[in-house]
């Protein structure tokens, strides 16, 4: 009966508690079968722990680091190129929006504001809201496409006001 308990402890060895270790030591002093089982387990663990990964020398690590740096640099360059392209597109769209504003400045706005919330805003507040909207995280092109002529002209006017004030 005790051998069964000891066998279960050996099964979990070396993940055993201090009390289990004491019990084990006491038992194997008297039981040859369990002592042999524990010895075998220890030798197997020793053999398994001798298995080490193939070493990597300094030159290989230097090559590793160099290759990694090149990948990271290439990633940084790609990100930078995309940012520049986006900036150019956004600038172009802003210029276009400003052009639309200039061409429609002398016209009587014939557009009704569709949203009730928007209609209740004062023009200045609405202009500021439009700037925030234009600065939000959606692609600028999509954002501007959703604005009607009145909203576009108000956006341009608000940008002009803000830039004039700065």
């Amino acid at each position, binding site marked *: 009966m005790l051998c069964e308990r000891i066998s279960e402890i050996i*099964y*979990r060895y070396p*993940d055993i508690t201090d009390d289990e270790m004491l019990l084990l030591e006491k038992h194997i002093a008297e039981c040859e079968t369990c002592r042999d089982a524990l010895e*075998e*387990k220890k*030798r*197997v*663990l*020793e*053999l*398994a*722990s*001798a*298995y*080490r*990964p*193939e070493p*990597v020398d300094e030159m*290989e*690590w230097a090559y*590793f*680091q160099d*290759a*990694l*740096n090149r*990948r*990271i640099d290439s*990633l*940084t360059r790609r990100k930078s190129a995309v940012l520049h392209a986006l900036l150019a597109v956004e600038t172009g769209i802003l210029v276009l929006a400003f052009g639309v504003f200039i061409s429609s400045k002398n016209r009587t706005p014939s557009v009704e504001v569709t949203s009730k919330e928007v209609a209740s805003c004062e023009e200045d507040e609405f202009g500021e809201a439009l700037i925030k909207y234009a600065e939000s995280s959606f692609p600028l092109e999509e954002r501007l496409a959703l604005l009607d002529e009145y909203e576009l002209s108000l956006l341009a006017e608000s940008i002009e006001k803000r830039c004039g004030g700065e």
Partner: protein
Amino acid sequence: MEKGVEDRLVELARKGDKVAFSKLVTTYREKIYNFCFYLVSDKSDALDITQDVFFNAYRSIKRFKANSSFYTWLLSIARNRSADFLRRRKPENIEDIPLSQPDNTQSVDDNRTRLLVRASVDSLPAKYREVLVMRFYGGLKFAEISELTGENINTLKTRFYTALEHLRKRLRRYV
């Protein structure tokens, strides 16, 4: 590396400081390589995966949450990358693996031992091998492995003891 120094390096790396990131790489590359090696059993593959691990870590370092350790975070990336690699790799017949030529620092016995243990570890199903590698070779606590894998601690313990028993049965004739 001290926790305070590591935290500072991670913070700098998050802001894009490549030198700080490079110091983190130097600190952990060997541990990550060893972990990958035990999982994929090939030096060249383990080095490639290790490089992927650090490249992905650099790319997503802003997503690293400081409440876990940086090393554990790297291990979780290494674990996923190794698993992807093993899924893609054609199953290998262990009998076909050539016995590599021992170099000057290794005896034939070392080489034989490595092959025997490697064959035994490789013959374990992935989820058993993973816990064996993390616990036995990586020295991680069950709680840390549980955090990494999302598995229950008792399940992990059962897998670990089963894996050790498997090794015992495979290697007993050689000890």
